């Protein structure tokens, strides 16, 4: 098992971030090199992903399941699937916290890669798995940063109304 982790702060309210990360339509698009996204339910999405490290090229078919651990605060995303005769199992945990001027998102991902890719790519798989995971959260961060303020307002409003 490989563990990767990181954190970043977004100048947005926690509720809004929470709404984003628990929305399969939105979270799904943060997966890098996405070919196809199929949202199967409010907590479940299936994605076809292009995997490419130089000549190593193939597709991974991944099913992701979102679980809320603590509403508004902590959720986990389990990603399972595979391709090229190999298996991928990841459990990403996200925790939101209020900080000055925004929200701190801490993430930690335990990844298990099984099969020929793990066996053959001993020299590089760790680097790649880390990069892909980091890219998911970099994409998430960028997507959150790019959230339009109107929507913030709208979301806030919706929240207020509720």
């Amino acid at each position: 098992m490989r563990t990767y982790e990181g954190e970043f702060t977004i100048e947005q309210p926690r509720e809004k971030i929470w709404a984003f990360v628990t929305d399969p339509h939105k979270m799904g698009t943060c997966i890098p090199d996405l070919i196809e996204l199929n949202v199967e339910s409010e907590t479940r999405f299936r994605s076809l992903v292009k995997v490419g490290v130089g000549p190593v090229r193939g597709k991974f078919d991944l099913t992701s399941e979102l679980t809320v651990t603590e509403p508004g605060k902590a959720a986990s995303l389990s990603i399972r699937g595979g391709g090229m005769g190999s298996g991928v199992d990841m459990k990403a945990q996200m925790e939101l916290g209020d900080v000055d001027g925004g929200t701190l998102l801490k993430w930690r991902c335990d990844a298990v890669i099984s099969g020929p890719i793990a066996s053959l790519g001993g020299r590089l798989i760790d680097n790649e798995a880390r990069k892909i995971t980091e890219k998911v959260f970099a994409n998430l961060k960028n997507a959150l940063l790019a959230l339009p303020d109107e929507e913030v307002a709208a979301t806030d409003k919706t929240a207020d109304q509720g």
Partner: protein
Amino acid sequence: MVFPNAFKYEVPTSVDEAVRLMTEYGYDSKVLAGGQSLLPMMKLRIAAPAVLIDVNGIQDLKGWREADGKLRIGALVRHAELEHASELDDKYPLLSRTARWIADPPIRNRGTICGSLVHADPGSDWGAAMIALRAEVEVQGTEGNRLIPIDEFFVDTFATSLNENELAVAVHVPTPGGPVAARYMKLERRAGDFAIAALAVHIVLDSEGRVAEGGIGIGACGPIPLRATKAEEALIGQPITEETIATVSRLVPEDADPADDLRGSAAYKRDLLRVFAARALREIAEELHGRVGDE
């Protein structure tokens, strides 16, 4: 798996045609030169390009020539050709010294220098050597040719700064302007294996016996082949004395970025680089001066 996936096979006879095909097929295609890295990956089906563009029939990519202060090595020059090109040993000793360490003789008869560079395996022997030589990779795309300095060529593991439709057509190695010596140092787990760590050292002396050009390339100790920048700075302009050797060899590992793996710990690999640097410089000094300088 022992059979590659089915693919479309294209055999261009000119660079232009190859570039056109690469443009047409884009991401789905891979260029096949020596094939000694690509085909094994295809056999295991961890690489599965839809189109193979076999450039082996392009005459322009064969052979080497010296011109304009450079040795231009065509993209189809095989490792074994440089290994046995004794006529190049005087001016470009690092070429045969590196070539003989690559994989094994049958693979060297087929694999190419440029193919190896473009494959961009961090353990690539040529990567470290070309860094030491301050080579440039000549690439051709639809917009024409450009030269990519080797330091800008490697981007990441298996990734180069080539555009998707650019073909590496040659590698250029500067012709040295003085007495030259070089060493390629490598430790393997088994003959023909990728390096545990490798170091390429290329030295050109000035008229006073000081290092005019000093290139040190590090292999298998990072996501890409690396340059020992600090060590080079400490080397250039100096005579090769015990003191220089001590300083330079101590600095070499500072630019390395190795990882712990089955081949050994990062600390071990760093120390190997230090040992290699000292051994290489000592041998070079003995070759150029008959002994290590005592200044």
